[in-house]
């Protein structure tokens, strides 16, 4: 199973694939999260609309990634942008759901207190609602990140590299070693990023909001 000679021989190419993969994940999750948080804020102002909109957005998520990338590929072509757009769209929903829930479940007493002492909606959002929802937002980002690590494998489908390259070669040539070389770094990347985000979450949570 572990042919060390092959790992050594393919090391430069594997390194390259890891970096590309990582790049896709980071860029897509960042874009997706920003869009998601903005959407969540907007939807939280229109809770009635959100009730209908959220399930519709959920439907997007059920479209297989392979189909979505395929369709985008037709319009945009074999470019990294295609991958990033597709992955960003997929990264939106987990963050959106969590951020929305986080914002709308802020204790109404805090909102009333904030309004009552003179905070305008914008200040209330920045100083109360978002800080209170931060934990939930980060949990969403963590979910998105881990999903995106696995979805980014699809980049190779349209020749954009990443760890999927190794996996596809492995499947096409029936060489298990390549599949292993593609999937182990992907798994480690998911675990590593998850761990990192956990650390950031703890760091960003003020003492007053920590459960203990």
């Amino acid at each position, binding site marked *: 199973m572990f042919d060390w000679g092959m790992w050594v021989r393919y090391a430069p190419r594997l390194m390259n694939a890891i970096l590309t993969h990582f790049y896709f994940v980071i860029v897509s999750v960042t874009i997706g999260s920003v869009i998601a948080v903005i959407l969540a804020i907007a939807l939280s102002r229109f809770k009635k609309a959100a009730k209908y909109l959220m399930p519709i957005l959920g439907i997007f998520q059920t479209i297989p990634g392979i189909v979505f990338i395929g369709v985008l590929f037709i319009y945009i072509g074999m470019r990294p942008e295609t991958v990033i757009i597709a992955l960003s769209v997929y990264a939106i929903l987990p963050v959106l759901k969590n951020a929305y829930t986080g914002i709308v479940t802020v*204790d109404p*007493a*805090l909102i*009333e*207190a*904030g*309004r*009552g*002492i*003179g*905070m*305008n909606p914008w*200040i209330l959002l920045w*100083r*109360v609602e978002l*800080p*209170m929802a931060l934990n939930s937002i980060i949990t969403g980002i963590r979910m998105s990140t881990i999903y995106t690590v696995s979805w980014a494998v699809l980049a190779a489908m349209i020749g954009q590299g990443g760890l999927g390259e190794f996996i596809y070669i492995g499947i096409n040539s029936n060489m298990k070693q390549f599949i292993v070389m593609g999937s182990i770094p992907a798994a480690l990347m998911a675990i590593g990023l998850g761990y990192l985000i956990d650390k950031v979450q703890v760091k960003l949570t*003020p*003492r*007053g*909001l920590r459960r203990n």
Partner: protein
Amino acid sequence: MIEFQHISKSYHGKPIINDLSFTIHDGEFIVLIGPSGCGKTTTLKMINRLIPMDSGKILINNEDITKKDLTDLRTHIGYVIQQIGLFPNMTVAQNISVVPKLLKWEKEDMDKRVRELLEMVDLPYEEYAHKYPNEMSGGQQQRVGVLRALAARPPVLLMDEPFGALDPITRDTLQEELKDLQQKLNITTVFVTHDMEEAIKLADQIVFMDKGDIVQMDSPEEMLRNPKADIIRQFMGKHTKQNNTIELTCGEIMKTNVLKVDNKRKVLESLELMRSKGTDSVVVVDKTNTYLGIVNIDDLQKRGVPGQTIENIIRNDVITLSTEAHAKEAMDAIQNQRADFVVVLNDKQKVVGIITKGSIARSLSTTLWGENNV
């Protein structure tokens, strides 16, 4: 001055407030009270425009509140709610600084103000300023809630059942602190409660509301004396029942076996008597049993000259009450003036008894639970 002029409000066609008009003067402590749904909270929240009115006007210092900028209006009105509503993501200092920050105070001014305010309610800055709300008790949190409302020195303070969720002892303390602060700062306060005891304790004027109307607006004393409607009477009954003092006189609760000495008794003799009876002081009477004062053992030992009578060291600073006096007076004397005992005299100034902490406790328990259980 806050003036309500013909304010009306309804929700979904159901009237909540009917043509409400009244005036709150500067520095006054107004308590809005009434059964749930009477419109008291709605009335309060219309002052800082959390609830818009349908018709009528509210003027603060002759300015129509709807003509003012919302942030400007609210940053100049302190607001305290029952759920406390401290921001859990901010420290005590940050919570208190919220309004000053909205008003763009300098950092040093905010720090100074936080210190000053925490000091006023005995929460030392070093210990509490950097705590988070969840690291404090409910009572401490609501103290901070009040400070947050007072931070930018607003001329008006609105409080919506602020102590409703606190335990009775904490509530009592906070009520006293609030009344002190309010008088010290001379801040016009509008306070909503459904607790008549609280209203009586705090208010300069009580506004009793029912079904969106003012039933009576009067001082607590006047409302207690002359409730204008049955519903007010019921409310007072419900809320002041525990306060009904038991009608007892001093004569009924006193101990009658008083240790007395004649004023011609010699010092050493008296000392011996007190030692043998294990008492620190003794009542002094003349031959006809008329009260003269008391002698205590300290005075006897320090100032008494052996061989002389005790006449020269009689004290007259002990509280005396008649047998007909209300027992409450004796309790007051012992509780508030820290007297060890009270001497009870009949109408001819003869000593008939003595009341101590022990006799009060005994008579109270007898009254409350009956003789047998004592």
